């Protein structure tokens, strides 16, 4: 039993030295689309986020340890038919892809299970947005038009045939890599970000699904990248996998850090 716990701790330790948790926040977020009257300003507590997106190598290790998540064994309840489809076999990456590329074609269920296996969780949308609001030099760069344009340019480009490896760009203010410019990332609450406090306001929710209409209720009308992420995330189902969607894990801030 003790042995089991020890080896479990070692596994978690190993995963975290390869892709360490970086402290981000605290900070104030003014959501592009405030979900309710009381949420025009969101206080995000300090939290930890993995330095880079989870890689193919990291995810392969997970799949080997938890065969229930192999693409030939997983329940179709949790993944669609393209799950891990870039891999040569259920247990081998093959020559076409690199171990250092971010893992893509993973569902929300699989991402969540991975994070839990290393004693972590998926970040919330607000946590992710706070971390992603930082440029290389500033914690909050959302009013920097040049920076914003760079992100928009990336959104406008088609996905490359072959994804670059992680950590190919400079880290942001917090020391986090590739929050922009590499892949889209799952968050814990991807499908409920737009839920308002009153289900009678469901009409509002529909409005926000369509570009433009949502901007009526929006606070930072020009933070379009954030709105695009919201639109993309809200369109997903938990079992979906796509070629530009991966994830990284988060944790509550460790006491005493």
């Amino acid at each position: 039993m003790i042995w089991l716990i020890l080896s479990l701790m070692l596994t978690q330790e190993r995963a975290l030295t390869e892709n360490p948790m970086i402290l981000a926040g605290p900070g104030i977020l003014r959501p592009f689309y405030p979900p309710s009257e009381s949420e025009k300003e969101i206080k995000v507590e300090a939290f930890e986020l993995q330095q880079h997106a989870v890689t193919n190598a990291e995810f392969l290790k997970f799949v080997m340890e938890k065969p229930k998540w192999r693409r030939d064994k997983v329940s179709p309840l949790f993944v669609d038919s393209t799950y891990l489809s870039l891999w040569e076999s259920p247990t081998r990456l093959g020559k076409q892809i690199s171990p250092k590329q971010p893992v893509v074609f993973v569902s929300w269920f699989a991402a969540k299970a991975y994070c839990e296996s290393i004693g972590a969780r998926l970040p919330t949308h607000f946590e992710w947005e706070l971390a992603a609001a930082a440029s290389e030099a500033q914690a909050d760069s959302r009013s920097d038009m040049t920076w914003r344009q760079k992100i928009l340019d990336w959104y406008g480009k088609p996905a490359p045939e072959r994804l670059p490896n992680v950590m190919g760009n400079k880290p942001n203010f917090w020391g986090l890599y590739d929050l922009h410019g590499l892949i889209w990332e799952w968050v814990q609450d991807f499908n409920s970000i737009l839920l308002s406090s009153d289900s009678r306001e469901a009409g509002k929710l529909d409005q926000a699904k369509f570009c433009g209409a949502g901007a009526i209720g929006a606070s930072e009308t020009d933070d379009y990248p954030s709105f695009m992420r919201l639109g993309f995330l809200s369109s997903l189902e938990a079992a979906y996998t796509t070629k530009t969607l991966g994830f990284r894990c988060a944790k509550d801030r460790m006491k005493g850090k």
Partner: protein
Amino acid sequence: MLASLFLVWAIFAPVHAEKVETSFYDLEAQMTDQDGKSISLDYFRGHSVIVTMFFSSCPHACPMLIARLRSIEAKLTKEKRLNARFLLISFDPKVDTPAALLALQERHGVDSSRWRFATPKIESKISEIAAVLGIKYRKMPEGGYSHSSIFAVLDSYGKIKYRGEALQEDAEVFVEYLGK
């Protein structure tokens, strides 16, 4: 003729195919019910089940959900009713203790042999159950939960036969799918 033969085959063939299809019960979760007993998500395996999610302190929508389920139950034929079960899973592990769930059952006077109110033991399982059922929910800063109201109808294997808007859809639709 060939087409109708195929149709007949298509209706009867899935008997063994059923097992490889996705089942709600692939999701493993332990819950505590209104009697304080530990039950797993597939407690009603073998029955025809309507599953939904709620929280007991909810002032408006949830009492309507339960009323709706009761009216569906009342519309069932005797034969269907024997096999029909109702599973209501809570979003709110803090408030929805067995005592709170039992109070809810008693308030609504439902038949406890066919109705289970249950709270998942591990909080992070709640989001997985909601995702599989296609239920969106969010814990609100001022307390309570905002959530969509969905009824999912499961067959005896746990396969989701139908999923519909709980309060807007005609009760007859759920009646139709129950026991199918």
